[in-house]
């Protein structure tokens, strides 16, 4: 019962955040921008056409009515029509690209986790050794490297010079995913590694680890059962919170590697002055971030028994 209450409250919060984003997008775009200038071809449009256009889109209505209509349209799944490409639905165009962005994001996180967790654990267990020093060096450099520059450099060395990977696009399947995933995941890698290391150092000092050792458990059991499980909790939280950053990152990385995802769709649409597409993509991305955050929060309650115990 407690769980369902919690789920409903979190769901309402997620809807609230999404609604807030939609509202910001609506008002910023209506107040800052001038739709007839962003959406109609400049110079060639006559004044009568502009007036017809305004009437057609309901731009002559008061703002709150426009806002209401905007929300109703969104609620019915009508995210607007792309101004380019013969009137395709923006939602369809986004749907075509979404899988690629998800693939890239997942690959980036998997890459980060696969390297960061073992490295963080070893660095914590062998504090002050070469491994620890190396891990800290990677962390300092990794955090300071601009991801887009790193991506370009990797294309230059590994694709152009050595020819190991394609220079861009997604045609080569797994091979074309490797470099973008590394460029995207590096920042997360550093964050996860730091968190794992400090969490591990902290937990190996606690009473329950000493107890586990005292009752004669093997060092392996102590490290994995009592240490790692505990140290990884904050990592899960951070991964959920870093989703926004990750999606922002995919926009950049998709541009660097010509990856056919939603991020590249957005930037291409700006260059083509396709405002409805930009707007729809931003709303879809923000809503999916809210949704995934909700999922992380809920799953966290299953991972950490203390939170469940707290509500009973």
């Amino acid at each position: 019962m407690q769980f369902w209450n919690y789920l409903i409250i979190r769901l309402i919060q997620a809807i609230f955040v999404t609604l807030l984003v939609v509202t910001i997008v609506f008002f910023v775009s209506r107040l800052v921008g001038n739709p007839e200038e962003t959406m109609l071809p400049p110079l060639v449009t006559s004044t009568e056409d502009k007036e017809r256009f305004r009437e057609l889109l309901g731009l002559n209505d008061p703002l709150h009515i426009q806002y209401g209509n905007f929300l109703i349209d969104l609620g019915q799944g009508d995210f607007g029509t792309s101004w380019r490409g013969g009137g395709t639905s923006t939602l369809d165009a986004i749907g075509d690209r979404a899988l690629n962005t998800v693939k890239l994001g997942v690959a980036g996180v998997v890459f980060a986790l696969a390297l960061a967790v073992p490295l963080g654990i070893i660095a914590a267990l062998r504090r002050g050794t070469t491994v620890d020093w190396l891990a800290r060096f990677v962390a300092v450099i990794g955090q300071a490297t601009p991801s887009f520059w790193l991506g370009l450099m990797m294309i230059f060395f590994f694709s152009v010079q050595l020819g190991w990977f394609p220079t861009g696009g997604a045609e080569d399947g797994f091979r074309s995913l490797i470099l973008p995933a590394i460029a995207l995941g590096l920042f997360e890698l550093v964050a996860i590694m730091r968190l794992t290391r400090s969490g591990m150092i902290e937990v190996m000092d606690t009473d329950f680890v000493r107890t586990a050792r005292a009752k004669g458990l093997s060092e392996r059991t102590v490290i994995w059962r009592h240490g790692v499980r505990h140290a990884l909790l904050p990592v899960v939280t951070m991964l959920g919170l870093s989703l926004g950053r990750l999606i922002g990152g995919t926009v950049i990385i998709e541009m660097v590697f010509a990856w056919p995802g939603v991020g590249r769709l957005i930037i291409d649409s700006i260059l083509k002055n396709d405002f409805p597409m930009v707007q729809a993509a931003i709303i879809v991305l923000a809503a999916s971030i809210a949704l995934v955050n909700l999922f992380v929060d809920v799953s966290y309650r299953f991972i950490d028994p203390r939170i469940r115990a707290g509500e009973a």
Partner: protein
Amino acid sequence: MAAGAADAVEFQPGIRRRRIRWRRYIGLSVPALIALVVIVAGVFAELLQTHDPEFIDLAARLAPPVFDGGTWAHPLGTDELGRDIYSRLLHGARVSLIVVGIVVPGAALFGTLIGLVSGWVGGMTGQILMRVVDLQLALPAILFAVLMASLVGPSLTNVIVILLFWTWPSYSRLVRADVLSLRERDFVTASRSVGAAPWWIMRKHLLPNVLNTIVIVMTLEVALVVLAEAALSFLSVGVPPGTSSWGRMITEGRDTMNVAWWPIWLPGLTLLIISLTGNLMGDWLRDALDPRLRNLR
């Protein structure tokens, strides 16, 4: 006896403290020197430049830097349009300085204020403020930048406004957490019980106690803001064309990446060094002032 004498020397405050202090500042000296160079470069860009940063000289396109077979006419070479890279780097430093100079203090001021109020007032107001703060996590700065660029075109003002909006919540979150524990401390409850006004308590008791946190976050945010500006400019939703920004230089160097290394390596390395500098200074400050913030990022 011998051991006692040694201890006595060891604990003579003057000798010991001075030596430790001196060593502590070594770690800060290199980043501080680099920061100083960048500030001088940005402020005196016109005096230090050898060419107009936007002057196009197609006859001199892709001239190599002087240490790679070039001439002193273009110390760090030229890009594909023959613009002088050294002069462009100087003006790029100015763009970064302007952005950092407005965004970091501005966000710190506003974020701290919101954090203080939401931590102190609590209740419904605090909750609503914190939901607004959480919005930062749901709406990546890049999406916002993209929205603005598609509406009014790219500009420096856009970059500043977007990064302000995007960075202030970090301060609020930390300040609020500090205030929530500070408000239960004896010196605060004592002040309240004798009828001190909320603003007085915030200024005299809360603010001095959260100042360390704010300074550390500000230093760490410098690198983040510089990289964010470069990323936005790289995506052509940041600084408009015709302005020298490190991010733009990387975009423009991309086309000639295979024939000339310098147009893309030099701004990239500059960015790397600057953000490294910011992070090292932040780390140093954190270790010196408040080690418990180690997990900040």
